[in-house]
């Protein structure tokens, strides 16, 4: 499934200053029963957003109208646990295009990149600055500049650069995905496959 191109994103952000947010929290297993990629955003952080009787948990950040935007800012080790791509789908379908953290779990990071959510890893110090800035002014805007690989707090101008390999960067900038690439390589892959011992 192709996704929208990602170049420069200016948005307010939703802060979630909790560490080790696992993919079971991002989307609990009982919501993985679809056979199509539809409606996962509704169940993003389901058990943190809703009480068992489906009423809203008012104290949870996604239920606080002060915080909104296309950027989700999470604590260290974001996306640990299960490989479910549904977690990245839920983040995307809810309306986020970028997740910022000081550390990402491997599979979640890869899944995000494959579906058009940009994972931006910043230093622990810069992450603290972001949380503080949003806490002080929830309307704080953040700029994610993919061509320049920078993240900027637009209120203060404080800036940090982030890493992304040039292959994935090109993909994100153009809305390409790996399947397009691999499909074009099929003959080369077949030549390789015949040499495998099993």
């Amino acid at each position, binding site marked *: 499934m192709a996704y929208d191109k990602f170049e420069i994103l200016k948005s307010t952000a939703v802060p979630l200053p909790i560490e*080790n947010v696992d993919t079971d929290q991002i989307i609990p297993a009982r919501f*993985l*029963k679809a056979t199509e990629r539809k409606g996962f955003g509704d169940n993003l952080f389901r058990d943190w957003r809703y009480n068992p009787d489906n009423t809203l948990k008012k104290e949870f950040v996604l239920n606080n109208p002060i915080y909104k935007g296309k950027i989700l800012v999470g604590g260290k*080790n974001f996306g640990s646990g299960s490989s479910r791509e549904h977690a990245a789908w839920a983040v995307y379908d809810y309306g986020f295009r970028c997740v910022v953290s000081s550390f990402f779990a491997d599979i979640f990071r890869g899944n995000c990149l494959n579906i058009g959510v940009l994972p931006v890893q910043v230093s622990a110090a810069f992450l603290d600055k972001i949380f503080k800035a949003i806490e002080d002014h929830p309307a704080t805007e953040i700029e994610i500049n993919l061509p320049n690989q920078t993240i900027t707090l637009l209120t203060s101008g404080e800036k940090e650069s982030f890493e992304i390999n040039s292959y994935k960067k090109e993909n994100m900038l153009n809305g390409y995905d790996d399947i397009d690439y691999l499909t074009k390589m099929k003959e080369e892959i077949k030549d390789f496959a015949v040499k495998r011992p099993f």
Partner: protein
Amino acid sequence: MGTTLFDKVWDSHVVKKIQDGPDVFFIDRHLIHEVTSPVAFLGLKNRNNTVLYPNKTFATADHNTPTINQHLPVEDPLSANQLKALEENSAEWGIPHWGLGHQKNGIVHVIGPENGITLPGATIVCGDSHTSTHGAFGAIAFGIGTSEVEMVLSSQCIMQPKPKKMRININGELGLGVTPKDVALFIISKLTTSGATGYFVEYAGDVFKSMTMEGRMTVCNLSIEMGARGGIIAPDEKTYDYIKGRLFAPKGEDWDTAMKYWKILKTDEDAIFDKELTFNASEIEPMITYGTNPGMGTGISNQIPNANEVEGGITTYKKSLNYMGFEEGDTMIGKKVDYVFLGSCTNGRIEDFRAFASIVKGRKKAANITAWLVPGSHIVEAEIEEEGLLAIITEAGFELRQPGCSACLAMNDDKVPPGKLAVSTSNRNFEGRQGPGSRTLLASPLVAAATAVTGVVTDPRTLL
């Protein structure tokens, strides 16, 4: 300079290296199940792609399947729909499918090794993070997302940056009642759940050398819980003995050819790792977790650490203990437990049932405990009966259920109710993992058994 086992297997599967990008990485074996594959098949159709090598993919139903009355239609319409999709997609593309009721059916990471699908030197992926299990055979095995499942179906490749390499050495001899599960929970408690992120871990040293294949599978299975993409253990005689004669294992001349290749699968003496850690077996006692991630574990006789003694943020730590209803300084032994779960791709094999039976033999299930004993596959289920373990556990007041992932992730009806406390041999104690509001203590089959007969968290060494 020498190379590592991991390098040898990885490098031999690189179809193409992309400059400042991932490797185009060839996959020998692809395992699929009902939950993470339907959208991949849909994507395949939408792009007018085909399955390139149907005989390199194997399908089983495990994640959402019921563990009782498997002969009846699945009641939950959404689960039934996923199972039907797997069956139809497999049939359409000619992929071997061991669905519900099939004699080879079981948890994907149990049936792979059991049927000789898992081989040393192979690359194995599945849309499930515990695919790391198969590393026990000297394979490179790891979990992937659904987009990657589609990539493997259509091209037998995925695009992966090569991880860094870590070696974890544990020498010495494990004490009484200390199992492979405890070894893994010990390592995770030292490294935290992100300590091995970005790495592939090779396990080496006396402890892993003397471990059975099933024990090695348990350790490699939990590699993901320290953040590692996977774990790997060099194959040896035990590995070859385990594989020989299994359904998909190489036979005749193919076996001899395979053995020649497998014998070179070890880390050279002068190979360098990006990170190396060493522990001694004597440091490890039976483990139990007390928090909401697998890194929050401790020796069973310890108390819950204070927030200032642990790595990471105090807010997160307190949130976690608050969810569990525990206090800093609490003693774990003696906590009243409601549920015991024996099973999962971590501890659902025959040795786990032997361990459980060794403790419950001649004792009775505690009245306050609801126990779910779920074999990893029909083959395990049959072994339990053949070895007389079924008689032992039945006599002790337990029932055996039918194979599946079950309460590990509670996608079926095996849900621990809100607020209830479970001792589980599975792999994750995340909030709500075993059902909304459930509270999980991860432990070995021995701890699970000791708890099941006493009704409270119990050190199994007191019952051995």
